[in-house]
């Protein structure tokens, strides 16, 4: 997906305006002319200028016939679009449930799902998912002592 520069510019302007508005609540220090709000305000002003020029250019190309939003070729193919969304969905799922479910079941699910979706043969997918999960768990949890969540397997590990 590729939005027209005018849309990108508009988003930038809105975000920068919000950023500058937020700096209003920053404290001023007595006897000090320059406080924590100065730098973000300069950046915000710069971004608004950039956003405005982007909008100008975008509107010009729109008048020349460019569409508002262009759909990239891969996004028209259901297969690659699903791959893309699947990765995002799995990452979100991991962020929300890994703490309760634990790393090992989540990693198995994560790897298994992606392998099968990408057309790895089921038995290879199963073996690789197991081997990969255990290897990463061993490397990070045992060797590097990263406290990967244990979750459901808390009593076993």
């Amino acid at each position, binding site marked *: 997906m590729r939005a027209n520069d005018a849309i990108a510019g508009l988003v930038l302007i809105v975000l920068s305006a919000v950023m500058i508005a937020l700096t209003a609540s*920053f404290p001023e220090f007595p006897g*000090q002319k320059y406080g924590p709000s100065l730098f973000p305000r300069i950046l915000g002003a710069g971004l608004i200028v950039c956003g405005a020029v982007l909008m100008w250019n975008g509107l010009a190309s729109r008048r020349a016939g460019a569409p508002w939003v262009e759909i990239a070729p891969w996004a028209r193919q259901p297969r690659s679009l699903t*791959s893309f969304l699947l990765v995002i969905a799995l990452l979100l799922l991991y962020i929300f449930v890994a703490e309760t479910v634990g790393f090992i079941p989540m990693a198995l699910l994560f*790897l298994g799902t992606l392998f099968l979706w*990408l057309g790895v043969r089921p038995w290879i997918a199963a073996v690789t998912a197991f081997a990969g999960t255990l290897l990463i768990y061993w490397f990070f949890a045992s060797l590097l002592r990263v406290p990967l969540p244990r979750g459901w397997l808390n009593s076993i590990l």
Partner: protein
Amino acid sequence: MDAFLAAVRLVFDPYVLWVITASAAFGMFVGAMPGLTATMATALLVPVTFFMEPVPALGAIVAATAMAIFAGDIPAALLRIPGTPASAAYTDESYAMSKKGQLDLNLGVNLVFSVMGGLIGVAILILCAPALAEVAINFSSFEYFWLALLGLTCAVFMTTDMPLKGVTSLLLGLAINCIGIDPAAGYPRFTFGGVELLQGISFIPAMIGMFALSELLRGMVSIDARGAMIAQQIGNIFTGVFDVFKRYWFNFLRGSTIGVLIGALPGAGADIAAWISFAVSKRFSKQPEKFGTGHVEGIVDATSANNSAVGAAWIPALVFGIPGDSITAIVIGVLYMKGMNPGPTVFLQNPQFIYAVFIIFILANLLMLPLGWAAIKGGKQLLRVPRNILLPVILIFCVVGSYAMTNSAYGIIIMLVMGLIGWLMEQHGFPIAPAILGLVLGEMLEQNFMTSMIKADGAFIMFFERPIAAALGVTTLLIWSAMLWRSVKGKPTSLSGVAPVP
């Protein structure tokens, strides 16, 4: 001298040597796999090096990146797909050579000139960095402010054909950097009451997101794309390389010099060095008509240049804390994590670490010869590793690596958000490198800017009162005006005008 001996002892430790060799093999693999870049190799290594002492940690990164930049040449010759963006400039030329039956010579030239170019880069690093550090020791906040601004300016100037999008990307990176405790007054900004945002955007998960996740997302949607493997067997790759050297030694020196210069400039690294030196080679060649038909001349220039840029990029990183390319941007993050704040003081307080980096660089380039030979011999098997297994495994590695940086889901959230931002930016033609530099240099820029503003107290002339500050300031302003002037006139401004933006 004591520091040098201490450095030798630090490096020639069995554990450190093992780490260097293992990272070198890892870098060779990642570099050779199309779609996995040298920067990504670094970003993936950082969670692992996080748990090491400074010397093995830096050794791992040096070795992996030096190998990865060379290894990108292998699939270029075999598949016509560059393994890293740094090989993209001469991929077609390499493949044309392979098709002419000069596969062995091409790989041999790539390997040997990569090693020699890499050594030139290291030599310049060793010669220049300590001398520059002596100058830099007297810098005040004014010099550092201009230096940071100049670095960011170069990043915009060098990496994009569209200065507007480069500047936007840079400002975006700087703005994201404002999240968290502000460096001058200690006031928490844009944290929305959250505790985790107080520490700011953790740098390493952000890098993993922008360089690894966004790359993986692109890989996932094009997983079926494959090149046609060249059928020819690989023989003795070193035959004829010496003749090439005798004929094109000047190209080698010129390529390495361009590589060093571009590597040392902030913001541009091995990939731009390769594009520019290839273009220079073609322009000044006695046989420009042969370019594109599988001619070795331009390859000599470009393959020397991208490897010499790797070492040179460490010069500004070590001396000023300003990254020469996106790899050293990560390195600076690692240095801060290890409590070795990059800057001239490291040269005084911990010279053994600096010498250790030099020694590791030399070792890594020498190690490239045998390891590169092995990678070339096993190249065809290496490139058959199925991507549908590789990508999910790297993805889960990114997740765990980001988690390990914060020991909480916060790291993974940052990775995901920054990955999506990076991906969206790429889709819309915004270069990522300036944003990353903004993220790395934001704090230094703001701190020195605020200090200078408070010192000057409204008298802006103080920004130009010290001679070096004045020179840096005027240079910066000149580059900005040149960019403005050219963009008003609508001409391409950047040196990378020779490079088609992918």
